[in-house]
């Protein structure tokens, strides 16, 4: 068998170009699989460990104010394990050397100690000392964004009073893995921070001594959240409870799990495509190798090698290609997985990323790649094994051709002989040609999938910030104010336009589905906030009823004309039934909208607003913010340009990174498929091409036969690739829609042109590589060899 092994090495060396091309495709599949599954594992393991080690609560509830003794009642609810009450409050922060407004959320920790639930993971320093009212622990991303460390200080306006706080430590919390400010869609670590301080100090500032306004609890194992939440809601209703929610609705956990779902989809779809293509390439290559080695097979068999030896030989050849591909894929996958995990660490803050390349994942990659390869080459290998030696000794019979319907048509007469050769070759090998077309189409489809989101994301951002969010600043008041606040806002420096709105936290319910969001009540005539339909035209706000974001309506399963249950999360917390008057086509967020007057009536209040959108003169921004911050009722000032920048950078970081990655792989697959095709077409035609050269055809004329064949396959593949790519893109687009944003399903002409150009480029490159061989084509050899 030693000689056979030697032959194996020689065959591999001889076929190195094609072997490399196929190995790259296998590597791409294994790499995406290893990368995505490893990252998925790393993130879910880190999350689970963080939740477990730091007692992440199961149920959360905010309320107005309840005396501490109420918590005893909750402790007695069946299924409740631990209960932690706390005080929380919004604050304004002033960080030395940072001009923009900064919002903060302060949470209490028991005096001098860790809470029972949602414990803090201290990264540096310590918890506030018992009895100290000026010490705080900062959330790590916020501290990092401002370069704050234990011992530094910052100012806070707590309940209207300016206070200097000293940083005792920096920590991470399982509640804020994804640290999002209220009303924000994306983390902004510079402009929003979470702080923890001693409960006594915080309670004193907010008149919360002996009371709490937030409660979290954990469940006994086996207990389900639903009944507990109902009981808690019942107990806290008299105290202004805003409705309990479980982990599923906890914002950080919710976004994290959506991100993991997205990763899971990619981890299934992408490797499946790559490994499918490599199975196809291996099939074509092995069939070709075995055809050319018929006589060698015969000789081996004549000398007494058995069927099994022959099958073993070709099986091993395939296996070696798979091993090369897998090795490359595992190494690259491990390397890119750590990059991907690091990227996620920017948005999701865990104490430690449990990153390890697990043998299980490697095995999975190798097994799937091996199975794909086995599937691809089984037929060719078993055919070689079954070849009777006497038959194998004879050259294969000349290929049989028959006239087709096309040839009896008038058109046929106009075609040159070279073109007839091309067409007959293609129609004779219909199955192989179809496979080639499928392979090339798939690579084109992948290029399209890898590139469509670039323009789709531009479209999203353009829609959101040109048609929907037309203001450049928004601000929220700590309580409802009269609409005439508009006048005083208009008098602020640089303010060009003002529109006020009423914003109320609600829970929407329809059937079994519910979702926590807010209703924004706005004026019927709006200039700074657009509400658009699917054709991007502005919608007239109905006098009554709700408008829902289309994605939210779909989530709730509610149709226009039906009603939804609206549980108002403030005041008397009434539950109302409101008709859905229409849907809006917003790419970002999941919201509900109403005419402001109608909302005021629904809430049984007079004309009242809770915030405003401003259009401002950028050059006077600083003066404006100083003034706005001095207004006592203003709790939050947001710059829309900032949120635009952060959403762009988030999309670029996460999604476009993945897509760029897919694009590079798609390009290499396009090349691998076309190069293999061109090489095999050349090998099969070499003799005919040499004959034509002898008969006086020029190199260019001979090359046409090869170029024509690859060209026709490529041209047929491009529209099919568009079709496949559009379908794949649609599927991918559906699977990655989430609360945060939905990338619109928009494929521009440029994207189609780009996909076509990618395939054409790959075809041209492959032909150039083959042209070298064509140039060196030895005419004399061709005359000497038998068919």
């Amino acid at each position: 068998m030693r000689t056979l092994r030697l032959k194996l090495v020689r065959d591999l060396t001889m076929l190195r170009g094609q072997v490399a091309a196929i190995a790259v495709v296998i590597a791409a599949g294994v790499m995406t699989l290893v990368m995505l599954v490893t990252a998925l594992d790393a993130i879910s393991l880190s999350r689970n460990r963080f939740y477990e080690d730091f007692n992440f609560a199961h149920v959360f509830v905010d309320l107005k104010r309840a005396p501490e003794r109420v918590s005893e009642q909750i402790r007695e609810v069946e299924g409740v394990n631990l209960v932690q009450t706390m005080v929380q409050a919004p604050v304004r922060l002033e960080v030395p050397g940072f001009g923009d407004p900064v919002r903060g959320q302060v949470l209490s920790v028991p005096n001098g100690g860790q809470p029972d639930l949602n414990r803090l993971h201290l990264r540096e320093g310590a918890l506030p000392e018992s009895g100290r009212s000026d010490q705080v622990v900062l959330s790590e991303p916020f501290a990092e964004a401002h370069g704050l460390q234990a011992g530094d200080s910052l100012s806070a306006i707590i309940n209207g009073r300016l206070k200097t706080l000293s940083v005792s430590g920096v920590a991470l919390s399982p509640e804020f893995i994804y640290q999002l400010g209220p009303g924000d869609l994306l983390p902004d670590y510079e402009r929003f921070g979470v702080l923890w301080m001693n409960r006594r100090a915080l309670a004193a500032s907010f008149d919360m001594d002996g009371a709490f306004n937030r409660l979290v609890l954990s469940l006994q194992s086996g207990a389900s959240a639903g009944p507990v939440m109902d009981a808690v809601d019942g107990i806290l209703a008299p105290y202004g409870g805003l409705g309990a929610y479980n982990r599923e609705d906890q914002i950080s956990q919710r976004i994290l799990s959506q991100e993991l779902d997205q990763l899971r989809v990619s981890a299934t779809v992408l490797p499946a495509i790559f490994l499918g293509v490599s199975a196809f390439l291996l099939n074509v290559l092995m069939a070709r190798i075995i055809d050319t080695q018929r006589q060698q097979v015969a000789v081996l068999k004549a000398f007494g090698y058995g069927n099994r030896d022959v099958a073993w030989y070709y099986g091993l050849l395939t296996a070696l290609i798979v091993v090369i591909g897998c090795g490359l894929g595992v190494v690259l996958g491990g390397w890119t997985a750590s990059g991907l995990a690091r990227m996620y660490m920017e948005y999701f803050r865990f104490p430690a990323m449990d990153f390890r390349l697990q043998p299980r994942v490697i095995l999975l990659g190798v097994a799937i790649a091996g199975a794909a390869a086995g599937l691809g080459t089984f037929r060719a290998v078993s055919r070689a094994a079954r070849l009777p030696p006497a038959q194998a000794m004879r050259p294969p019979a000349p290929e049989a051709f028959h006239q087709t319907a096309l040839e009896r048509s008038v058109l046929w007469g106009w075609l040159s002989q070279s073109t007839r050769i091309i067409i007959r070759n293609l129609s004779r090998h219909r199955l192989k040609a179809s496979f080639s077309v499928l392979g090339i189409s798939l690579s084109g489809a992948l290029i399209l999938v890898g590139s469509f989101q670039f323009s789709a994301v531009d479209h999203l951002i353009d829609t959101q910030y040109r048609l929907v969010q037309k203001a450049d600043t928004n601000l929220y008041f700590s309580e409802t104010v009269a609409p005439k606040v508009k006048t005083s806002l208009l008098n602020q420096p640089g303010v060009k336009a003002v529109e006020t709105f009423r914003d109320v936290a609600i829970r929407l319910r329809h059937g079994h589905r519910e979702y926590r969001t807010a209703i924004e009540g706005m004026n019927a005539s709006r200039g700074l906030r657009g509400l658009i339909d699917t054709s991007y035209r502005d919608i007239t706000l109905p006098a009554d009823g709700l408008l829902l974001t289309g994605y939210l309506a779909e989530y709730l399963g509610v149709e226009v004309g039906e009603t939804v249950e609206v549980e108002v999360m403030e005041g008397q917390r009434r539950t109302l039934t409101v008709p859905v008057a229409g849907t809006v086509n917003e790419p970002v967020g999941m919201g509900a909208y109403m005419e402001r007057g109608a909302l005021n009536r629904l809430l049984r209040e007079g004309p009242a607003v809770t915030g405003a959108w401003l259009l401002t003169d950028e050059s006077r921004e600083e003066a404006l913010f100083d003034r706005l911050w001095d207004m006592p009722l203003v709790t939050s000032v947001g710059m829309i340009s900032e949120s635009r920048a952060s959403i762009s950078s988030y999309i670029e970081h996460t999604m476009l990174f993945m897509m760029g990655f897919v694009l590079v792989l798609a390009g290499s697959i396009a090349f691998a498929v076309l190069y293999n095709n061109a090489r095999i077409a050349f090998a099969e035609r070499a003799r005919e091409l040499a004959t034509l050269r002898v008969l006086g055809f020029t190199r260019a004329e001979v090359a046409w036969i090869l170029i024509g064949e690859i060209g026709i396959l490529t041209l047929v593949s491009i529209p099919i690739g568009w079709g496949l790519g559009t379908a794949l893109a649609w599927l991918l687009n559906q699977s990655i829609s989430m609360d945060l944003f939905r990338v619109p399903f928009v494929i521009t002409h440029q994207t189609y042109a780009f996909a076509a150009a990618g395939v054409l480029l790959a075809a041209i490159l492959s032909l150039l590589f083959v042209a070298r061989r064509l140039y060196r084509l030895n005419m004399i050899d061709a005359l000497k060899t038998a068919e």
Partner: protein
Amino acid sequence: MEHSTGSSRVVFSTRGLTKVYVMGEMEIHALRGVDLDLYAGELSVMLGASGSGKSTLLNILGGLDCATEGQAMYGDQNLVRASDKALTAFRRDHVGFVFQFYNLISSLTARENVSIVTEISRNPMTPEDALSMVGLEGRMDHFPSQLSGGEQQRVAIARAIAKRPDVLLCDEPTGALDSKTGVRVLEALEYVNRELGTTTVVITHNVIIGQMAERVIQLSDGRVASIHVNERRAAPGELHW
């Protein structure tokens, strides 16, 4: 080197023609100074053992290969110095080839295999006429896989003569055929040579085929060993092997 048949116009003339192949560290002298004239309209047979240099000589005369030294004149064109482009044009305009293994394009019918040459020629006969000359008027729309070996070789001859070449070079045209079929192919070659007056060179290691030639050129060890003029040419039908 007198010759007594055909016209006296020289078509090919080689002087000191040498071909050295370099294979790794080895030099193989395929031709060691061949001096030879071929005359218009004659049918000559080139005999020699394998390795004698006959195929190399034919390849150089047909513009498929370049000599290392010496000259190979076709009229006043020296093929040894010709560019690749000039050699392509030379093959296209003047030479017809017949190969041992036919080298038909399997995806084209007999008629189309001939058309592929007539389409690029200046003054061709029709594919139908060419195929009639080799007795295949009834098999014109058959694909190679539907023809016997002898029929395939006759298609190859039709393809070679359809452009009315000045020379017809045949490398072991009967090498892959049985004797009876081989004779039919040789009859076709003889008929074409007689009817069209095409200078025809047949390479073979089959000495018997030499009997149908005007001249028999014996090559050995890269040189012309002897030239024999047949007093009486045998008709192909008289040959047996």
